[in-house]
């Protein structure tokens, strides 16, 4: 293989990996297209053709015959990775790293996940639930119990997500668990209002990333990926709603 061809392969590999990491972790499509075009341009490719969708990426450079495909299989929310890819792309544009280092760092980033520690996530879930319950419902006495229920709900969601890896099912189960816990705790006299506790506790499960990205994608003209994300958000919301509704039916 000539060195020019090798270089083209490396450019394609880098751009495709960067794009896949960004979509997998919840970036909007326009940013992915922008980043990939910039990588190809900064690496010296004269032209680049791109087709980015939420389930896969197609890219060709320099008008060659062989375009390459990168499927996107997983879908999680890890916005830090998007920020890191963005940073790397900037560093590459400023010639602080070369293409080989860029590709290595992307591969490394792909395998490593730097989430906040689990206990901090639990605390964060509590700190989403309790304060929002107070903000929405002005019910100060139920603050602590909402924190507790929200935290346990996130724990259920997290553990199930590890084992069954279907987000909608984990959301459904977590919502049902939150409903049961709220009813039981109010029954035991630990809280006053089932409604307020549930409203606060499901807030950590709200699909904020798909909602925002769906709107932004549709506005940018990605009429396939935008509505697809909208459906994702809608199914999540419906799963949470059914979980709660099921518990309320059996009251």
């Amino acid at each position, binding site marked *: 293989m000539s060195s020019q061809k090798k270089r083209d392969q490396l450019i394609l590999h880098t751009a495709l990996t960067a794009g896949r990491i960004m979509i997998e972790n919840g970036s909007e499509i326009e940013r992915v297209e922008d980043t990939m075009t910039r990588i190809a341009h900064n690496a010296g490719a004269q032209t680049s053709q791109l087709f980015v969708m939420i389930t896969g990426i197609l890219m060709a450079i320099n008008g060659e015959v062989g375009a390459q495909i990168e499927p996107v299989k997983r879908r999680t929310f890890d916005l830090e990775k998007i920020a890191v890819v963005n940073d790397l792309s*900037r560093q590459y544009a400023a010639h602080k790293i070369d293409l080989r280092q860029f590709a290595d760092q992307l591969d490394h980033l792909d395998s490593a996940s730097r989430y906040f520690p689990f206990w901090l996530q639990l*605390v964060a879930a509590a700190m989403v639930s309790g304060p929002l319950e107070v903000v929405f419902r002005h019910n*100060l006495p139920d603050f602590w119990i909402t924190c507790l229920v929200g935290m346990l709900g996130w724990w259920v969601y997290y553990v199930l997500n590890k084992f069954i890896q279907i987000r909608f099912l984990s959301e459904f189960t977590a919502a049902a668990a939150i409903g049961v816990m709220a009813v039981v705790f109010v029954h035991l006299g630990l809280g006053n209002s089932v409604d307020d506790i549930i409203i606060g506790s499901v807030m950590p499960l709200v699909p904020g990333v798909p909602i*925002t990205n769906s709107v932004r994608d549709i506005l940018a003209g990605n009429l396939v990926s935008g509505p697809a994300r909208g459906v994702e958000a809608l199914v999540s919301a419906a799963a949470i709603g059914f979980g709660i509704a099921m518990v309320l039916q059996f009251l």
Partner: protein
Amino acid sequence: MSVLEFIIEVAGTYVATIAFGVLINIPRRALNVGGWIGVLGYVLYRFTVLWGGGYVIGNLLGAVAIGVASLQAAKLKKMPMILFNIPAIVPLVPGGQAYQMIKNFALGNNSTALVFLLQVVMISGAIAFGFLLSELVNRIQRRFWRHRKRL
């Protein structure tokens, strides 16, 4: 609304926005700014409702403020814009109305449920349209700063 209530609401919004940021793994140096943008959007919404603007207009203004402020933060910190606006819209999410809708559907009070469904749709639409308007502002601004670096 007394001053104490207002302070509690602002503190609650700030804490909740940052905590939601932790759940979706936002980089640490973006968390604080994201929290303040969330507070900005919520305060704008709250005062619009208090002064009789209605909750639809309130959510619209809140979403516009969040969109525009997120872009400024993205420029300043050289980070993607979604790091700031995703946690910031969480306090605007119509959680209470959505819950009342689900509850009333589950209990068979369909007419009450439809009222809440309408509210949820209107609020979500207002937030989406608010983002659209903020995008308009952002694109105009980008046109002026074309030679600058990407966000």
